[in-house]
Each structure stands twice: as C-alpha cells, then as structure tokens.
C-alpha cells in the first residue's frame, strides 16, 4: 500500500464525519476486510455493524460477516444481485463504482422470503442521497437486512486480487487498523471456519413448506420446482408461460411428490448457493427420479443434474458473476449475452455419452448447457431468467418447456420460438 496505515485511518475518520452528516443518522464506522490470505482492505462501514476483533474471535462463523469473496461486474442492478439467494455465504464486491443510485424497492426482491442471504456488500461509493418516492436507500436496507456493508473501498484492487488468487473467505472487522498479530489471529480464526464445501446453505435458503404458484394466463402444465434458493424470476418466467409451479423445500424427499396425488410435467431444479459436491443426498434422490419425468435446471440445478448423470463439477478460480458473458449455442452458432453467477462448473468430459453439449462460454469454453434426450434432462449454467441482466436468453424457457412437454430438441425449438416472434 502506498498510503501509511496512519494516513488511511485519518482519511477514513474524515470521510466518516462527512458521511455521517450526509447520511442523516445512518450509522457508519471504520471497517477492515481481512482475507484468508491476510490481505486487508479498509472501508467505511454501513448497514450491519461489523464485529470488533474481540467479538469476532469469540464468535462462531455463522454469526460473523464471513463470506467467500466474489466480484460482480454488473452495472446498476445491485438490488437483484444482493437479494439473489445464490449468494448465501458470500460477500459481494460490486465492480461498478456508483451503487445505490436509485434506491431499493421490495418489488425487485429475488428471494422468495424476507431477507437476502449474502453476508457483506463491498462498494467503491455508496449513494446516500435522496431516492425516488416509495423507495429506500441501500444503506437503510442493509441495516434492515442485516448485511454488513463497506464503502469507499478500493474495489478494483480487490477484484484484481481475486482474479489473480481466486475466491476465498474474507471477514469484515470493525477496526480501523489491525496489527500484524491481529491479522494473524483473524487468519487463524478464518482457518478454523468450515469450508464452503463443508457448509449447508440450501436448507436456509429454501422455502419451509411447499408453495404453489398459479399462472395468471391459461395453464398448460404443472412443474415441480425443487428450491435450493430459487430466484423469484425463475418462478415468474414459468408462470408467464402458463406453468403452475409447486415450489418444494430442499430438504423434502422429491420422490414423495412424484408418487403422491397429482402429476407433474417436469421437475425444475433451481439455482442456489454453495458447492454442488456437498449435495450428494440431493444427487442420489435425483438419480432415483431420473427417467420418471423431464428434468430441467438452472445454475446449481444444472450442476446437480450433471452430477446425477454421472458427471463431475469443479470449483472455478473466481467464477463468473456478471451480466456480459457470451454463450455460444453450438447448434446455431449464435452467441447470447447472458447473466451469470456461479463459482463451480460442470466438466464436459465427464458427461455421459447420451448427453449433448449444447451451450459453451465463448470466453473460457466452460460448459453452459447440455441436454440428454434419452434421460430427458436439459439444463443451463447461466441465468436465462436474467434479473439482473440481459433478457435475450429468456426464450430458453420456451425451449425448456417444449423439451419437457413435446420432447423437442433445442435447435428446432429455438427456430420455432423465433418463428413465433416473427
């Protein structure tokens, strides 16, 4: 760092005074973000107060603002990102420098419940001024959501760090400056925390009881949506296409729903947080229902489906989290600009012979989607429901539905979808 700690400290003290005045009573405090590798970044806290060093060392990981650090390159759209349950256990760095500009609005919530699941939000410049009528400031929302916020952080430096060294745990500490021994204690504390692989996120993110959503348009099918932390937009996209959606809690036996009364046209596996390798119980259940009915999936759902078919998943260095990923359709050679949010991906080589690689990422060639006509599985890694992000891949929901209901294969289905638009 080119600035001495003392200077940084003074600088932030000064900024604090400013911000306190501006934000009209929103509490702010100096906060340091300590990475598992010992790298520290300072910022001004907002939202939930970060624990002091003593509180941190005495506390359990679940109560502390400990998260796997990921950066998201979306500009704007902070509300949808923060409320996406896939961020459970993660701390989000927004690379866009101005955040909170137009306030927050519960209508934009992506979680089905009341509270988001990410642990911390790290920004370059938080907006604390007036927002449009009927909305609240992001700072106020973070207080209510109990999210630990940091602003005035060198988010670009963090991004470059993650890009080079990969995602890792970091924890926010409500201290101005930490000595070398202090940092060592925090590192040791982090090291004692269970890894992402060892943690269960999906039960916390899932609905507690089954919920049925009925479409406002003419109903044409019934889907089960197995909820590992689904985004509301997935449900909305299905509803808009006449699909009745029964959201099933993650910890329920899925077979019970298939053998009971009523029949479902497809099982939809939702997105969700964490490492798919930690979800073998789900994978086993899936293997039990494969061939019973078509299986569709997005993100974590895609990874679980791949594992159920015998494929493997691997952790990426820092994942894909942004609104601008080029995804190539190997059938049409078209490239979609897609929204992505994942830290794990499917290893293409491990998919069974019956599966067809359908979509790949044009930047790193990672798997973005496949289907298996024999096993009636079709899933994508990215987020066709967008929210946030580009809407152009939303038409994949039509492809999903046609595949589930008519057994149409993607290229044909896409053509049909394009034709219907014309």
């Amino acid at each position, binding site marked *: *760092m*080119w*600035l*001495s700690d003392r*200077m940084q400290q*003074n*600088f*932030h*003290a*000064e*900024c604090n005074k*400013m911000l306190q*005045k*501006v934000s009209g009573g929103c509490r702010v405090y100096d906060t340091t973000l300590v990475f598992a590798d010992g790298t520290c970044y300072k910022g001004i806290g907002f939202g939930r107060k970060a624990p002091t060093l003593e509180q941190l060392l005495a506390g359990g990981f679940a109560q502390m603002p400990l998260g796997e650090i990921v950066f998201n*390159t*979306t*500009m*704007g*759209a902070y*509300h*949808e990102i923060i409320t996406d349950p896939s961020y459970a256990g993660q701390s989000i760095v927004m*690379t*866009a*420098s*101005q955040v909170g*500009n*137009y306030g927050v*609005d519960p209508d*934009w919530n992506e979680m089905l419940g009341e509270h988001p699941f990410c642990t911390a939000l790290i920004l*370059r*410049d938080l*907006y604390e*001024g*007036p*927002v*449009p009528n009927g909305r609240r400031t992001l700072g106020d929302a973070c207080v209510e959501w109990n999210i630990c916020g940091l602003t005035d952080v*060198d*988010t*670009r*430096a963090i*991004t*470059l760090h993650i*890009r080079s060294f990969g995602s890792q745990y970091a924890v926010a500490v409500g201290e101005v400056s930490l000595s070398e021994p202090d940092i060592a204690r925090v590192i040791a504390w982090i090291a004692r925390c269970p890894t992402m692989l060892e943690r269960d996120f999906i039960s916390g993110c899932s609905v507690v009881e089954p919920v049925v959503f009925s479409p406002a348009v003419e109903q044409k099918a019934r889907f089960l949506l197995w909820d590992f932390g689904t985004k509301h937009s997935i449900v909305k996209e299905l509803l808009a296409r006449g699909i009745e959606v029964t959201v099933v809690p993650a910890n329920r036996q899925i077979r019970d729903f298939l053998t009971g009364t009523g029949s479902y046209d497809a099982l939809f596996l939702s997105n969700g947080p964490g490492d798919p390798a930690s979800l073998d119980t789900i994978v086993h259940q899936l293997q039990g229902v494969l061939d019973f009915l078509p299986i569709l999936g997005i993100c974590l759902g895609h990874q679980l489906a791949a594992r159920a078919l015998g494929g493997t998943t691997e952790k990426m260095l820092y994942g894909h989290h*942004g*609104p*601008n*990923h*080029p995804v*190539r359709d190997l059938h049409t*050679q*078209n*490239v979609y*600009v897609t929204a992505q949010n994942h830290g794990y991906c499917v290893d293409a080589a491990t998919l069974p012979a019956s599966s067809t690689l359908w979509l790949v990422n*044009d*930047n790193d060639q990672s798997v973005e989607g496949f289907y298996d006509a024999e096993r009636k599985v079709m899933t994508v890694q990215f987020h066709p429901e*967008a929210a*946030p992000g*580009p*809407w*152009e891949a939303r038409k994949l929901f039509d492809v999903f539905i046609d595949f589930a209901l008519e057994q149409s294969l993607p290229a044909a289905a896409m053509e049909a979808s394009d034709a219907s638009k014309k």
Partner: protein
Amino acid sequence: MPARSDISSVLIIGSGPIVIGQACEFDYSGTQAVQALKEEGYRVILVNPNPATVMTTPGIADAIYMEPLTVQYVEQIIVQEHPDAILTTMGGQTGLNVTIALQRAGILQRHGVEVIGASIASIELAEDRRRFKELVTSLGLDSAKSVTVKSIQEAQAFKRLVGLPLVLRPSYTLGGFGGGLVFEESDFEPMMRAALAASPEREVLVEESLLGWKELELEVMRDRHDNAIIVCSIENVDPMGVHTGDSITVAPIQTLTDTEYQRMRMAAIGILRAVGVDCGGSNVQFALHPDDGRMVVIEMNPRVSRSSALASKATGFPIARCSAKLAIGYTLDEVLNEITGATASSFEPVLDYCAVKVPRFEMEKFPMPSKALGTQMRSVGEALALGRTFIEALNKAFRSNERSMEGLVPLEQVKGYTESDIEEILASAHPLRICAAFSVLYREGSEAIGRICDITHYDRWFVHQLYRQVELEKQLCAHPHGQVPGTELLLKAKRFGMSNVRIGELVALPTKMIEDACEKSEIRPVVHHVDTCAGEFDARTPYCYMTYGEADEANPVSGDSVVIVASGPNRVGQGLEFDTCCTLASLAYRSIGRTTIMVNSNPETVSTDFTISDRLYLEPLTSEHIRQIVEREKASAVVLQLGGQTPLSMLDALHDAGVSMVGTSYESMKIADDRGSFSRLMEELGLAQSANRTAFARTEVLALAKEIGFPVLLRPSHVLGGRNMEIVYDEVQLATYLDGTVLVSDDSPLLVDHFLEDAFEYDLDALSDGESIYIGGILQHIEAAGIHSGDSAAVFPPYASKPEILEQMRKAAFSIAMALQIKGFMNIQFAVQNDTLYIIEVNPRASRTIPFISKMSQVDLVGAAVRIWEGTSLFEQGLVVHPGALGEGSCKYGWAVKEAVFSFDRFVDIDPQLGPEMRSTGEVVGIGATFGEAYAKSQIAGGNQLPIRGRVCVSVNKKDRKTIAPIVRQLQELGFEVAATRGTARDLFDSGIVCETVLKTDEGHPNIIDHMNSGRIDLLVNTPMGKRARRGDENLRSAAMHQKIPYTTTTSAAAAAVEAIRYLRSQVVQVVAL
C-alpha cells in the same frame, strides 16, 4: 464466417469539412475502418476533401482522393478505381447522403458497386421519421405521441388525450417559425391559431412534449447472425430538450433500474433488427419519464456517430473498427476484443469508472440569443474525462474543457454572476446550468436539492453528487486559511477530482504549496487501465487514466518515453489539424523506435485511439496532469509544438517544474511570444512589422492608436483564433470596442497594431534544425487582409506574387529561424502592402496548415520534425542540399486551394461577417491542374456552388476599379450579365463596359440587397469600401450568405472566381489520387 472473398476493394466516403455536429469523430472512425479493412487485405479507396484529417495522410488508405463529395466527382472516382463495394457508415450524415445520391442516380448499380455496412433501405427507413415511427409502433414500443391537425378542434381532442405541455410545429415553415411549446391552458388556443396561420397549408403537427424526461443512448452492434451487443450506455445529465451533443453525459447509465435498462436494451436490439442493421453499429436514443418510467424511442442512427466515438473512448471498445469487420462478413464472436486480447467482441463492456463528457461551446463566437440550448446542436467540441466516481470525472471534464474553469465551481466566484443571473441560468438550458445548480447548493445547502431537481429536471442523484462537493468545499473553506489542509482532507479533495489550483483557492494558498503538501503526504495519482471488463480479465491495455487513493496498476511504459501533449476539445481555431499532427508524430516516433505517450481529453480524435501510441492517457490538458504523467512515466521529454495553443499555455509551468521540452528552447519560445522582445528581434534582423503598441490599461488605448495611426487592429494577447479581435477605423469605433467585454490590464494587455489595409497575407510553414531551414510551403491568402488566416481561402503555391517578395519571405524565415534557433516547427504570417513585406507574427509551433502542406508537397513535415528532434538534421534527411542551406517544398498536384467552411447555418440570428476573429469550423481542399480548377473544386467541396451563367453584381472601391475592369470583361465574355453600383458602373463604362446600375443599400429601393433577395444576382464582387461603407458591406455579405450567393471580397478572389467559372463551364470532371 470468414471475411468475404468476393470483394477485393472498398470505397470509403469521409465526412468532409468539420462543421458543428460533424467533427473529427469521423476522421477517427474512418481511419479505424480503413486500417481494419487493409489488415484484411482489401484495397481501400478513400474520398475526403478535408486536408486536416489523418485518414487522408498518404499511406493510410491505398488510394486517397481529396475531391468534392458530390455525385459527379465520386462517380469519376468509381470509374477510375472500380471498387467492388462502398462502405456507407463511416462518413457521418455526409457519407450517407452521398451514398444515397449515388444510389438514386443509378451510379452504384451501373458500376456494380455493392453497398456494405448499412443498406440504403435501412438508412432510408431510419431517416424517414414517419416510417420509423410506424416501425417503432409495430415493435410494440412507444414514440412521442403526435397528430397532424388542420383545426383547433382536432388539436383539442389530442390535448384531451395527452395533456399539456404540447409542442406545436407548423408544417412547411422554415426553422420552426410560428411554432412553440404550450405550457398553459390559456395559451393553447391563441398559440394554436398562430401556428395554423403560420403554415402555408394551415396544418400543424401537435406532439406531446418530452421536455424534462431522462435522455439516454445505447450504442449497439449487430451482426448477420443476429448476435447483438450493447457497447455502451450513456445517460444525459441534461434532460430532454437539450441536444444530446450539447448535454453533459455520463457512461454508464447511472439512474435506471435494471428492469428499465434491460427493457431499453431489448428495444434497441429489436429496432436494429427491424431496421435491418445487420453488420455494424447504431446509436438508439430514448426518453424515459422520470416518474412513471414510460419509455419513448427518439431516433436511431444506422452508422457510426459522434456518440459511437464517445462510447469507444468511454469503454475502450473500438466500434468503428469492429463495424468495418462486420461489414465485410465477420460476426461479433469472430472479432477479438483487442483490449483484453483474450475475449471475443460478443461480450458487453462493463465499466468500473465513470466517463463524463462536457461539451465545449464557443459562446463568444456564436452568441446564443437566449443563451439557451435547444434541439439543434451548438457545441463545437467536447471533452471526456474518466474518474472512479461521477464527481471526480465531472471535475476533470470541466478542466479538460479548457474554459478556464478548475472543475465544478460556483458561478459567483469565477464568473462574477449575481444571484439573479444564477437563478436565470438555472431555469434555462444554459451551458453553465450545472454550475448554477452547484452555486445554489453552495448558498442554500441540501434543502435546495428538491427545488433544483424541479427546475432543471436533473435526476436527484446527479444533484446530490454536486452537493457532496459543496460539503467538501465547505470543509476546505472552514479550514484555517493560510494553512495546508491535513492529509485526509487533501486526499479526499483529490479523490473528488479537484485540482491543486482549486484547493489552493479554497484554502487561500498558492498552488505550489498544495503541490508540495501532496508530495510531502505522498498523495500521488495512480494509474488505472481501461480494460472493458471491470478488471475481470488481465488486460494489458495501453489505455489509462489517473485517480487517487487506490492501488497503482501500471509501471512506466519505458524508461525513455516521449510525452505528446495533444490539443484537447475541438474549438474554432484549434481542431482536427492539430490532432493529426500529434497522431502522425506518435507514429513517426514509434517508427524509429521511440516509445510514445499521448495525452488528450478529446474523445472524437484519432490520437485517442489506443493503437496510435504506446500508452494513452485520457486526462485533462493542464500542467498539473501533464507534470504528473511525465513524473510517473519517467518520460524523457514532452512535445509541446504540435497541439496548437493548449500545450504552449503550460510552457511556463512545465519549465518551472523542470520538465524537459522537445525542440526549440524555452527562451526562444518566450521571445516569440513576447511582443517587446519579438519587436526588438525583428528590428535587429531588419524586418518590418506594422507599427504596434501594447496597452496595459483602457485609458492608454486611444493615445496609442493615434500614435500609430488608424485603422488599427485590436486584440487581447494570448488568444487563439483571434477572439475579441477587431479592426477599428476611428475613435468612435474604438470607444465602442472598449465599452464591450474586452479586458485590458497588466495581466491581459491589449495589442494595438496598425492595420495594413488592402494587403495580401501569406502563411509560411517551415522546419529548422537550428542550422538549416526547410520551408514546407508558402500559402497566399485569397481574401483581403483583415480576415483571419483561418477563415481565408489560401492557395499553394502563391499565385499572384512577385518572386522578389517570395524571396524576401524565405530570407526572413531563415534569419528568424536562426535567430531563435528553431528546432522543429515555425509558422510565419506575412503581409505585403505596396510591395513591402511585413512580419505579422511568428509561432514556434506546428500551424493548422501543416497537414495540408505536407499532403500537397508530399513531404511529411511532422515526420521530418520528429527526426530533427531525434537528432537527424535536415541535411541528413535530404531536405536541404548542404548544412546551412534553405530547402523548399512545392505543390505536387499543380494547384491546391484550401477553403474555410463555416457553421453559421446553426445560428439563425448570427451575422456571418468575416473578420480578424476566426469563425470557420473546418476546411476543404481543391486540387487542380489549373488554378481555376483547384479554386472551383474548393468551392464545390465547401458547398459553395459558383454560377456558370447569370448576373454578376460588382461594387468595388476606387483603387480596385482599374483591376476589376478586365475581370468583369471576362465575365461578360463568358456570357454573364453585369450589374454594378453607381461609382463602379461609371468607371466600368469608362473602360468600355456597359452595365446595369443598381442602388447601394443606403440609396433607397430596390437596392442591391433587394436584387439579391429576389434572386437576380448569382455572383457578388464586393471589395471593402473603407470605414464609411463598412456597415453596408456587412449587410451585403450577410445577404449573400443567407441567399447562398457566392461572393468575393478582393479583386484577386474575383479573378480566381473567373478562372474557376471558366473551368466549370468546360464541364470537365477529373479526379486525382494523392
């Protein structure tokens, strides 16, 4: 899909001269397109008569034609070159218009030229307002609601539907005459009645008003596979009602929700698809209601544009280059993103900074009646700045704009505006409105945010950002005066983008102390890369900006680089030609192995293309920023000779900071700059200057003027393009001038020169290594002395000059170059009156004629200068025959005439009079085997069609009557009818020419202007009549300008016109490749 192999040569049409609304962005896009096509192996043929451009530099395209952009000439080029295709999208509106005209004339079909880039059909669809509106509706999107009515009742029905305010546009009237905006119910009927009455068809277009809505733009690329990306989103800080070119803008969009943005994104792509843009870029503009979010499509441009240049520089994504590749068959995913070097172009750039554009206005040169901006673009240039936050970028952009504002500043502090002035500015669409908002926040605090939003319709987010700076400035002001602020506060101010000068002002300390305090506290700028991906990929880009208080990303680009200071935003007097010099210098340096660093703030330019230099800094051109870049990069030297006046304005500051400058010494530069020492030097060298004095107070001016004798030329020192420059003929005029806005003080003295009436002016551009001199060329002005050299037509070589006089010029140039030990460029302006040579001024820098002379003489003067700076003498370069000799270039294409082009039609009430104050925005060249051909082509290229038959009206002063007679006789022989004012007619009669006599303007009616207005006059020859008739002359010129009647103000220009007319009557159309 690979590049197309069925075509092998492509014709690209440039945009011609710079006018308001069409500036150097098209040199940038055209140059990129040429390079992109050449690297794919295509033969590229280029047409552009603008000599200032990079694109017309030999070597850029395979064949370069500097011919008029008319169907006739372009067809001739097509006949000569047989291009397989024509790329339509690179030459702005001019390029599109020419292509459409070629198509309509059947020329493209006849010669088998395929249109690539954007099809004629899609261009026409996008340009036809009605059809475009229908298309928008068919996509389920909104456009502004409107109805064409023939009665008040119909209008009322529409009003009930959409409510007030409404825009009334009477059909078939010019310039919106009779229309307006209705805000009040009570105004509706009377205004409607007036509007109906104003229309000859009694027809009015009634449209809903979008005033105050948010205005947004998306830059979209789409390929033949229906892949589409948004390269950049831009939000206008100024809401609807101010032309986007005149608005302060920020990229990316800041105040839209994701749903609003994505809806707009899909709409934009849908519009491209429907219009049929399938291999290139377009710009789509939207308005968004700030409260209910209703989105209205405003328009789209199916080509690269000013915004796409801006978007390219804001994101690092080369839109024009990519468009060219798509035009020849590639798809987006096949075009590599050169910035990351790893990702495909089928991804959308994301920004982790803000890019703020502030337009540059010439309010002094083009006064705005109401001082308000409107729907027609009036800015002449723009500056872009990057910062991590909006406010940082905004402050930098204001500095970049070079309007003597250190950033966002309260108006009462810097411009002396009163509280009521500020309220008035706040309520109008004034260029300084954002500063007015800042002033009000200063005065009233955060309470005023709501009121400001209500008045200005700025989004509250923008206003709050201003308020944050108010808070910070108050902290600085509250700091004990005369004490250096603490490190924390100082760093915070720097992170807000504030300059050391401004911080110094606020704490009442000299700038130097702030600099020292920053240095002591180790507050230094850090470098960030513009990488298109917000840091997601390791992008080794050469494109950088600076910010404070963050991690530094870049090491010096080399241990021995040279920094080129470019010329900043386009303005009258400093434009494209200087950017071309900077660009060519960078290329020349690199070709001999030197590392270059370009610094510029003008996003329209080629110099800010990141491929031009080894490293590019988009930073304000002030001494603070340049010094920091030099220090950080450990650069060995700075080039100040190429960017016009901007780099020279930091001469002292950089010299004081110990920065080493390339070429001519600081001391010599100062001599050339200082009137006293320069006059002494001229005296020593035995060179004549017209009598001149310097006044340091208003009261001195009259005495000095009398001392040297009227007429006198008055001008403030250190101005570019002759601002506030005027010729006065007597005491009364002098008093009027001094009553105006001009400032006369010790710091800004007024220069008083004896005006050489009826003189010929010359421009001489030379290079020297301190030992020898190479004269690139001598240009003779065709217009009379007293018209700014930038506004005068000029011919290379001089066409009516005595060899002795030219020889005197060469000798003078040699002795001045030796005396000043010029290393590099030198421009001398001469005047010749009664066979006596006078030195008007010497500029020890590249002049605006360097690109023109370089091209016409086939000697790359910029390259030669660079080699001089690198130690290769003129002799070693083969430009002089022996050391200590004088060499001179010659025009290699027969005759070349450079003509000035104006943008007066943008300003309804402006007097188009030419004078010592430069007002032209661009220039064109005419090349010909004869002087007549060259002059004729320059006129055609400049949009000035000389008549080949009709009536010439002659009104010349006594001295000129002898000279004019044979000229008039020639016109008569060519079949022209002749009319003349009384005196002229009498003297013509004495010379044996009988003609119609017309009244002068002060002699009653019908007078000469009445004749002009009634279309009886096709050519006007009018030489200055001296002070008494000055006003009448001006009126004549105004009338000619408005009626588009060609006119000449010198007998020499009249003679030139005759030769041109003779050429035009020959009906020969010939074109020549450079």
